[in-house]
């Protein structure tokens, strides 16, 4: 459509060759442009704020309470929320406020660590596939396709059954197949960018492979990569919660939000607060990550830029 876009406003400048153009007063890069559009998205900014609050609370929350997360107090089991125990206590009399934020901390660590490892492996593997193409790509891609076709959670469950359960094991298990999606995103972007003229231009200037990759290819592929990372954090948090729910997650006395929900299942019709606090927090975290991811997708999408 030719109608929109050619909107020469009144203070348009004319350059030396007499082509009228509308250069804005301020020069902005694409990153600044994306940030401006993200700032305009209330839902995404609210989600970002929520995430910052949750992350801060998971660091500070346990410190400002007089209790710790592992001490039993069998005199005060299953207490409802009160001024002493803000979120109540669990079946061993442990303070739920501290445990909930400690749980959130574990869940966030799992989510962020798994996403970070996926990112690193995905960029390297996908970068190699995309940059070199040809036979290297065919073989590596087939390998990842086969690996991907094996149901993800089954592999994770098997690994956790076999190896000593714990934080490290879970993170490793989640990344065994988790990096594949990221590598495909990177591969697709690099392949598409590789044939773009600006990369050819760099090659015709004699730019090295490293320069092409790090100056031209990856910075332009970063948008979809950021979105994928943002969306892979909640999916890792969900998987961890799911595994904890099966008793394959972090082991007591350490708790994650998932294992707390699992613990709360026994007798939760009598002590529902033991369920609601961790459940609400996990939903809120996942919701915020998903909405932020959507917002980033819109903000970074070059098609939507005017």
């Amino acid at each position: 459509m030719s109608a929109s876009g050619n909107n020469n406003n009144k203070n348009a400048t004319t350059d030396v060759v007499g082509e009228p153009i509308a250069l804005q007063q301020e020069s902005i890069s694409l990153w600044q442009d994306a940030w401006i559009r993200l700032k305009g998205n209330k839902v995404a900014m609210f989600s970002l704020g929520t995430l910052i609050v949750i992350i801060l609370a998971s660091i500070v929350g346990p410190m400002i309470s007089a209790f710790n997360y592992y001490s039993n107090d069998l005199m005060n089991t299953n207490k409802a929320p009160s001024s002493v125990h803000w979120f109540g206590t669990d079946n061993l009399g442990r303070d739920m406020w501290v445990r909930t934020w400690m749980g959130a901390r574990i869940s966030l660590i799992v989510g962020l660590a798994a996403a970070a490892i996926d990112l690193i492996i995905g960029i390297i593997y996908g970068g190699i596939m995309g940059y070199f193409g040809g036979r290297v790509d065919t073989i590596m891609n087939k390998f990842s396709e086969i690996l991907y076709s094996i149901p993800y959670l089954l592999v994770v469950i098997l690994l956790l059954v076999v190896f000593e359960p714990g934080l490290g094991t879970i993170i490793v298990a989640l990344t065994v197949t988790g990096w594949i999606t990221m590598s495909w995103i990177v591969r697709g972007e690099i392949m598409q960018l590789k044939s773009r003229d600006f990369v050819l231009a760099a090659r015709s200037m004699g730019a090295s492979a490293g320069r092409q990759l790090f100056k031209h290819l990856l910075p332009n592929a970063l948008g979809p990569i950021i979105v994928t990372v943002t969306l892979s954090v909640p999916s890792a948090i969900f998987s961890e919660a799911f595994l904890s729910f099966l008793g394959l997650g972090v082991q007591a006395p350490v708790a994650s939000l998932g294992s707390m929900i699992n613990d709360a299942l026994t007798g939760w019709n009598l002590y529902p607060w033991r369920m609601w606090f961790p459940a609400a927090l996990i939903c809120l975290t996942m919701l915020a990550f998903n909405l932020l991811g959507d917002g980033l997708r819109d903000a970074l999408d070059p098609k939507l830029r005017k």
Partner: protein
Amino acid sequence: MVRYIASKFLYMLLSLFILASATFFLMKAIPGNPFMSEKNVQPQIKERLMEQYGLNKPIAEQYLQYLGNLVKGDLGISMKYQNQEVSQRIADTFSPSLQIGIFAIVISIVVGIVLGLIAALYHRKLIDNVAMIIAVLGIAVPSFVLATLIQYIFALKLGWFDVMGFNEPSDFVLPVIALAVQPIAFIARLTRSSMLEVLNADYIKTAKAKGLNGFTIMTRHVVRNGILPVVTYVGPMTANIVTGSVVIEQIFGIGGIGRVFVDSITNRDYTMIMGVTIFYGVLLMLARFVTDILYVLVDPRIKLSGRKGS
């Protein structure tokens, strides 16, 4: 076409083989032997058990025998319940899982597509926003949280449904909802974005220039192309629902395969874990295989060269 299907089938077999082998060697990697934990077993009995499960043979021989049995559909004998065949146990408990699973899949597809279509047609209107808020919530709330929540409200507090058990038709409702909400949300978002893309396509302008009315354009040109991507989601959705059922059956006290799986994990019943894993693996890979074939059938553009354009 035949070549395409054959190549997809081969890849499925290859993936299965890898899963089966990985399962086998992982189980062998467990330190000690599976009967060590049971302290009061006498050495002679232990010896006999080892014999019975073939655990004292060389690994290579065990592996070949295991693969051979797999082909025959023999998944071995449970280590916990020594008179029970794994395949028999799976067969016995499959029915409720299958029923709930199929219900959940059908409802996910129908409701998801309808929700997505409505959202796209009323793009940027109130209905669109409401549908998308529901969809985002559906994606953000883990199925087991949703399950406990609706169990609490509709069974415990309101008393509309049984809290536990799986005996009458109404017992389907809550587990199916708990399983279907996430796939519904995914499908609705997928349908919506692909519909919006189709609505802006040039060939829709052509259809309008032909003088077709809105309804015909919708049914003949928009919807068909708009829901194509949903087909690709059938495979992942099945995986989602199958794994989801593992906890859902636990929460609603349904004696399906998911329950067997959880029990076997708790009891460290290794042959059972292996058996159910393989069974799930076959199921999910079949779903992917069907998806691949479906996609070729509905989209004439896919070149039947054995590769899907990405």
